[in-house]
């Protein structure tokens, strides 16, 4: 009850804060704060002269507010976004602002806006913030910083504007912003606010231009270097013919004359035209390295940061594997099971990262579906990389099943850290070095250590 009441007050506080920040300049907020402080101390006008300060600052703000009305904007704005961005990596983009008016616009400011939605109480209540243990008791129990963190995550990015600029009559200005995505997925841009300060420099006149666009943000990833995962090449029946020139066995072998029973799709039409006899393309059976990347989406702990790090680990492996010219099967389960195949003519690395950018955590135990899917492809894959969010009996059972089918399994277990957790290595008894603990607090270093551990078990 009290928490709900607090949450409602937070919403009011947040909206009031946003309204103030959108209306006042930084200096304006400072003067407003000073006016409130002077008002508090000047409540009894016979005790101090603080009411004089309050009166002065109050009327300064009032006059500035009065002068801030009436910004008739004729400017046009276009946004030039990159194709994609990566979480945590700042990216620059431009806003093209044109002034069709005869009047010069001086000291303008631009604020590009990302869609911001306020979470529901249920979302706020279910949220677990890994930073909470570092906060003080009051912040932790009241939860306002946690809520702000959640809003920031939902907004998905932080935009740093390029400062004030002037625009001559009929002129054009390229305004560069720096976007730092803080979250994978799609970033939704809603519009652009053009701001004009009042003569005192305290309050903005704003004009809003609706400009909806979206930008794909890939998950954060770590450079894993060269992975030397064990596992033999396996025959890839059918389907791999789409491969063109990679792999150690050139799949296109030669041309030969047509024999009865040859499929028509294998006719080489150019040779047929030249020779006037049907010529057939002969293929060699395809053998190549195919790896399975299993992403555990069952986030039983409710710690979203754990899952996000799991996705980042999956993205890091996807990049490392696809760049090493292997075929990668990404498997995860949500409401249903998903399997995506990348490399060698299938999905590209960008496609794979896009999928990982949009993958969602699941609140239900889906390990069985994941296990079935992995077992089905186990005959084609030479090694499985399992990104797990816990090392409980259910997950260990999954690993045991894969091991029983003779698969090599590399287990990456994401743990909150900072201390290393004691983990039971029984499911990977013959090569315990393939059980890697990646702590959230030391994510990059722990994940990079995987490349040192890989090699024949």
């Amino acid at each position, binding site marked *: 009850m009290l928490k709900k009441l607090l949450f409602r007050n937070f919403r009011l506080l947040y909206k009031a804060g946003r309204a103030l920040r959108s209306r006042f300049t930084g200096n304006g907020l400072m003067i407003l704060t000073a006016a409130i402080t002077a008002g508090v101390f*000047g409540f009894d*006008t016979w005790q101090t002269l603080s009411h004089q300060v309050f009166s002065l600052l109050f*009327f300064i703000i009032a006059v500035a507010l009065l002068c801030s009305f009436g910004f008739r904007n004729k400017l046009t704005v276009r946004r030039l976004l990159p194709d994609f961005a990566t979480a945590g990596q700042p990216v620059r983009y431009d806003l093209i602002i044109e002034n069709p008016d005869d009047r010069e616009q001086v000291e303008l400011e631009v604020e590009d806006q990302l869609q911001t939605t306020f979470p529901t109480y249920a979302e706020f209540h279910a949220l677990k913030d890994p930073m909470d243990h570092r906060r003080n008791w009051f912040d932790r129990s009241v939860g306002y910083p946690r809520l702000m963190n959640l809003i920031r995550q939902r907004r998905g990015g932080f935009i740093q504007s390029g400062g004030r600029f002037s625009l001559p009559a009929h002129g054009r200005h390229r305004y560069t912003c720096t976007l730092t995505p803080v979250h994978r997925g799609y970033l939704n841009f809603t519009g652009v606010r053009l701001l004009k300060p009042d003569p005192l420099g305290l309050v903005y006149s704003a004009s809003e231009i609706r400009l909806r666009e979206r930008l794909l943000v890939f998950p954060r990833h770590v450079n894993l270097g060269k992975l030397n995962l064990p596992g033999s090449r396996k025959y890839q029946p059918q389907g791999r013919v789409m491969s063109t020139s990679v792999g150690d066995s050139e799949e296109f072998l030669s041309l030969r004359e047509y024999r009865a029973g040859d499929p028509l799709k294998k006719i080489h039409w150019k040779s047929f035209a030249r020779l006037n006899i049907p010529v057939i393309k002969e293929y060699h059976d395809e053998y190549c390295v195919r790896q399975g990347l299993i992403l555990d989406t069952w986030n039983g702990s409710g710690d979203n940061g754990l899952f996000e790090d799991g996705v980042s680990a999956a993205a890091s492996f996807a990049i490392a594997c696809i760049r090493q010219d292997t075929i990668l099967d990404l498997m995860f389960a949500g409401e249903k099971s998903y399997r995506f195949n990348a490399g060698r003519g299938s999905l590209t690395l960008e496609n794979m990262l896009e999928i990982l950018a949009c993958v969602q955590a699941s609140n239900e135990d889906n390990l069985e579906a994941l296990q079935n899917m992995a077992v089905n492809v186990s005959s084609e894959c030479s090694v499985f990389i399992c990104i797990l969010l816990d090392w409980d009996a259910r997950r260990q059972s999954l690993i045991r099943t894969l091991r029983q089918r003779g698969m090599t399994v590399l287990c990456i277990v994401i743990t909150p850290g900072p201390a290393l957790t004691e983990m039971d290595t029984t499911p990977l008894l013959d090569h315990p070095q393939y059980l890697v603990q990646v702590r959230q607090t030391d994510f990059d270093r722990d994940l990079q250590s995987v490349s040192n551990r890989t090699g024949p078990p």
Partner: protein
Amino acid sequence: MSIIPETVWLPRAPVLLVPAGLLLWGWQTQQVIIAVLMALLLESARLHQWKLELDNTDFNRVTDFTSLVMVLTIVYMFYNYGSPGIFEILSSLPLVLFPMILAQQYSTRGNLNMSSLFISMRKLSDIDPWFTDNRIDISIPYFIICVIAASEGNRLPGIYFSLVCLLTAWLLWGIRSRRYHPLVWFMMLAIATGAAFAGQHGLRYLQGQLEARYIDFFNRFHSARRNEHRQTTAIGSIGTLKFSDRIVLRIEPDLPLQQPLYLAEASYNYYAYGTWTNIDQKSLVIDPELNGTSWLLSRSDSGHNRAAITAYFDDDEALLPVPQGTTGIHSLAAFQLERLNTDAIRVELKPGWNRWNVHYHDSIVTPSRPVHADLHIGQTYEEELKQLASDLGLYNLAPVQAVSMVENFFNENFRYSLTRKQRYPRGKYLSKFLFEDRKGHCEYFATATALLLRSAGIPTRYVVGYSVDEYSDFENRYVARARHAHSWVVAWIDERWIRIDTTPAVWADLESENRSSLQFISDFWSWLRLRSDELGDSEFVRNQDFTWIIAGLFLVLMLSIYRRKRAQLRSMRPGDSRTKAKVQGMDSPLYECIQRIEDMGYTRKPGETLYGWFKRLSKAFPQLMDSGIVELHNNYRFNPSTPVTPVDISDAAQRIPPLFSTRVR
């Protein structure tokens, strides 16, 4: 490491603005010399290039120190001044926050890290990638604090207002928008200043109007000082009366009290519409005895009872609560003592805790005789009261018997109540009490008794003060709380004033039922304040002590920063033996081994890494890399959690020189 770029909040204050703010503060709070010194210290930071290389940890220390001083100041000010201490805290802010602005001005960075101001941020800064420890320039906020703190001086409002306008214009000029002509800026500011001038007068007028309208309310609930000319009662008020548990008086009688001790503060003789007043406001100044601290109210009689009374006075003028039979007041540090016509004692003394001894009789001994006003009833109730007096047969009784009859009348027919739910027409409050409700608190009883006896021709006065009955085991003396405030009547019978209290005796118990369960905390706090005053010699001495405490803490801070800086400098000095052991891995045996290899003529090129050098040498000595000494050394030198020990390196190092010696041979 944060991924969001760092920004600096707030611009830097224009040149000389902060010193100007400090001087304004110094002028208003009469600390000109301190302000001038502070201003010079701040401004000199601009004039020379000497700066301190303070990092975030140093800033954290400075702000922690400031916070500590701030907390001490708050405790000290509230401890000594009570709630008005808030203004003392305000006036001391520029001084308390000075280390922060000083650190900023003398630092190479020129601004503070936000996490230095908020401890909770410090914990997040090293683990949360989305958290940015932004910087903040505190020069403008500090200037604003100086201006607001200066307002506490409350001197020359016209000049203060003009100076504040001037300084604000100075500040705003620097941050104005260049989009507009300066004339537009000037006009806007002029409009705002004009409106503010009228506005600040308007605020004072508004407060005056509010106070005039609700003066009764303020007097009744907020004023600590009793008004000797007027006492507004709660007669006719709706709701439940609530009084504070605050201890207002401490009484140490020579002998334990057998019955409640009545300490009178003031008495009144004219009643109308819920307010008692004194028409005659004459007073008589009583000269002290030769010792300067004793005043004799009756020279013929010294009184056979003794008691010491302690009370806190906010103001330098007060009505002294004393027993009504007081013959002399002793050991009172007062400048002047007056006896009012209504026998109240008014004193001029130093605000704060005061203690005095009284000599008194159980019976009332006062020289004043009744005046015409002591028989005044007023048209509102005259008819009803005379009828009641007639019904009670008071006209046929001797005054003493009449008093007994009245006491019996109230005792048998009335009960005590602090609650009134129904609103009555103005001027009918007492009628309703006497003839319908027959319940109320002491003000009803005392007023009705006084007027009823007057209607029977007996002069009476309405007296307010305290009824002391509670003994505090903790303090080992009697205490009177705010809720022990009481009113009663004195009647002129047989050429002397006698006390008549018709309020049912249960009143004290009923009022104590509402006491707070945390009363013991406020009692302890009150006792602590009293003790501190008893221990301290004077306010001046305490202020001096406080300044020394702050100066000592400042010294500790400076010393701590100096020690830290010295340690940093030492760590940068390679030859210092004191730093060698502290740097991780500097005691690696490989260094000695390297020296020996170099002595054999295999010199390391300038800038060549250890690994590169060994790799180069391994072309001639292939076994060199097999020793794994470089890996062991690097692990020991740069990995704090490594299990490698110097013994491991030493074992590997022993195998190296023989390799070279073989080649030499």
